């Protein structure tokens, strides 16, 4: 059944359409390069936690590049919301809108959004936008992630305001902003880098219009979206009509000990239309694990895009989103009400929500994957750096193991599905901040076994070089593990633990500091010589481990990721030195029930 036929005719010559579409995508990429090269914070120039997008004059997205899925999905909502609230009729050339309000379509408070209207002949023909994760936003902890109970504790909030007027800074906004964060110089520089990328994009759009003219450009904007909508609807129509539900839970909210929080997602496929219904999810939690509407919508788009065939060439823009509707009940964990906290909803709840939707998709497609580590590994460090005598704030991100999938193992030590962030290189972190990395490696032996195993997490030990290092965390999977799929086994847990100088035992946060949660806490204090252990979770396995290619098991043993004992007990693979003992392997696997492992 086709419920919403797309009869929008594509007018532009297809070759020209591709040229202009790719020109706009390249503009987004160029914005990102400018941002990376001119920003001050490692969060931007190393972790690359930002996204650059172009919208048309209707405030509908026409181009993005492979930046951060969570951010890009939320721009679909925060950009038009901010423009509508200010009023397009109140914008002039040289204006820039700024907001970080989590309730207005944004992901969470640390995501700063800047939007610049592009004028030609007195009319707005495009908006260029940049959404980026600001390291520090004030609030009760350095770098924003902890066990907040409301938005006021998270930091400073800006509803949509003009931060530039007629190409000049609105000084009052900048002064209020930088006087409320721990890193004023870096924050000012980072904001200027964001805004600079908008000016760069404006020049590129100017060149595009000079070359092709306004009429062609405007027709292309419509056709770009219509092509994507047509392709996305065709993809959805290829899935069987029906309703497919799945549930999962967050282990805690950082405030109420041991209280899990349920998320329920139902995929409703009706012809070429998809409704993602989160009715049945728990009420909003007391801590920062709530998702904003922007985060929830973004997680729905993210899950759908993960299900597209690898050969899919659907351009990601507003046309894709037209085919997907979201239902997120207000006041629930998937649509937080003011003044609920939401900073961790974007970092940890988003990837969990994606995995829940992928579990629902597994009812209709083997392309779905097992769950991943479900946390961005957000740990904030802050204090006064004795070398500079200035406050510092650093947000540490860490890769996790991804879930096994139908065509391969889960990725090792990769940032979770909501982002494409990189970790900050040890050399950069140690140059800028007063701590050392004593150890950093894949965590061997711990993984969700399966025909395609999950990816491995990491193990890292920090040693602090100064007193009074304030550490805060919003991390997940300390108790809940990434689930396996189609008979694959669950992944392994996160561990954060501390060790005072001279001591030998690692102690977790609840026992060491009396926090409500092992992974969500604020401002525990470490001193010079103290150490912190951080082990990230592995991904779930996909399929029966006893069906895994024995040669792949051998490779993992050779790489010292698994032991010969693991190979035998978890995979039914017997090794003889550097080779697989095929005869004994056959015996082991048949004795386990004809290739099945209970």
């Amino acid at each position: 059944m086709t419920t919403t036929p797309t009869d929008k005719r594509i007018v532009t010559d297809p070759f020209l359409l591709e040229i202009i579409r790719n020109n706009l995508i390249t503009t987004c990429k160029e914005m990102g390069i400018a941002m990376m090269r001119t920003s001050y914070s490692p969060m931007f120039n190393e972790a690359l936690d930002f996204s650059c997008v172009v919208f048309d004059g209707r405030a509908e997205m026409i181009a993005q590049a492979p930046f951060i899925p969570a951010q890009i999905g939320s721009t679909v909502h925060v950009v038009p919301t901010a423009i509508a609230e200010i009023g397009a009729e109140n914008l002039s050339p040289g204006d820039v809108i700024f907001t970080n309000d989590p309730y207005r379509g944004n992901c969470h408070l640390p995501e700063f959004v800047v939007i610049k209207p592009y004028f030609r002949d007195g009319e707005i023909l495009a908006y260029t936008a940049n959404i980026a994760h600001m390291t520090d936003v004030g609030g009760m902890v350095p770098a924003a992630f902890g066990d907040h109970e409301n938005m006021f504790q998270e930091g400073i909030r800006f509803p949509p305001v003009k931060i530039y007027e007629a190409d000049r800074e609105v000084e009052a906004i900048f002064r209020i902003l930088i006087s409320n964060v721990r890193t004023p110089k870096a924050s000012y520089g980072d904001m200027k880098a964001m805004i600079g990328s908008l000016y760069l994009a404006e020049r590129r759009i100017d060149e595009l219009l000079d070359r092709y003219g306004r009429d062609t450009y405007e027709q292309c904007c419509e056709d770009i979206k219509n092509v994507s909508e047509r392709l996305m609807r065709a993809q959805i129509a290829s899935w069987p009509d029906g309703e497919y539900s799945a549930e999962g839970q967050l282990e805690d909210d950082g405030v109420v000990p041991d209280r899990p929080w349920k998320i329920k997602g139902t995929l409703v496929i009706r012809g070429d239309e998809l409704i993602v219904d989160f009715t049945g999810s728990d009420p909003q939690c007391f801590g920062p694990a709530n998702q904003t509407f922007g985060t929830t919508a973004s997680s729905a788009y993210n899950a759908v895009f993960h299900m597209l065939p690898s050969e899919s060439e659907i351009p990601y823009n507003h046309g894709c989103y037209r085919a997907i509707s979201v239902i997120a009940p207000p006041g629930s964990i998937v649509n937080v009400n003011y003044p609920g906290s939401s900073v961790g909803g974007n970092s940890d709840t988003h990837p969990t929500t994606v995995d829940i939707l992928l579990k629902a998709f597994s009812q209709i497609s083997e392309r779905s994957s097992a769950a991943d580590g479900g946390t961005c590994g957000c740990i904030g460090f802050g204090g006064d750096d004795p070398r500079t005598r200035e406050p510092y704030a650093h947000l540490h991100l860490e890769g996790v193991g991804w879930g096994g999938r139908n065509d391969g193992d889960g990725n090792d030590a990769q940032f979770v599905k909501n982002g494409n962030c990189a970790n900050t290189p040890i050399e950069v972190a140690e140059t800028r901040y007063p701590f050392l990395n004593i150890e950093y490696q894949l965590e061997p032996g711990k993984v969700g076994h399966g025909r395609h195993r999950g990816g491995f997490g990491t193990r890292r030990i920090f040693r602090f070089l100064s007193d009074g290092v304030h550490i805060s965390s919003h991390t997940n999977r300390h108790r809940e593990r990434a689930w396996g799929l189609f008979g694959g086994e669950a992944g392994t847990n996160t561990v954060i633990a501390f060790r005072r100088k001279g001591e030998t035992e690692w102690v977790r946060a609840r026992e060491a500091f009396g926090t409500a949660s092992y992974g969500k806490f604020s401002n525990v204090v470490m001193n010079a010589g103290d150490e912190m252990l951080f082990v990230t979770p592995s991904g779930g396995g996909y399929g029966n481990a006893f069906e895994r290619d024995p040669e792949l098991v051998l490779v993992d043993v050779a790489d010292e990721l698994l032991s010969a004992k693991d190979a035998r007990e978890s995979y039914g693979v017997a090794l003889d030195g550097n080779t697989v003992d095929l005869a004994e392997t056959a015996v082991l696997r048949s004795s386990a029930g004809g290739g099945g492992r209970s």
Partner: protein
Amino acid sequence: MTLYREVNEMPRCGSCGKLLTSGGIEAERRGHAILFCSEQCVRVFDTYKEPRYGDAAVWPESIVR
């Protein structure tokens, strides 16, 4: 300065739940005037949400009159 309205004084779309800071489509449903963010959301409400959830389809945050 124009009167500042905090977000908890603003309605949510009756179908998707998005905050509506300005504009919206008002429609009469189940005895209430409900605000929606788009025609698409009105359609989803009428063809899926309301038939499935009945009175529970109407969120208090979406009622404007």
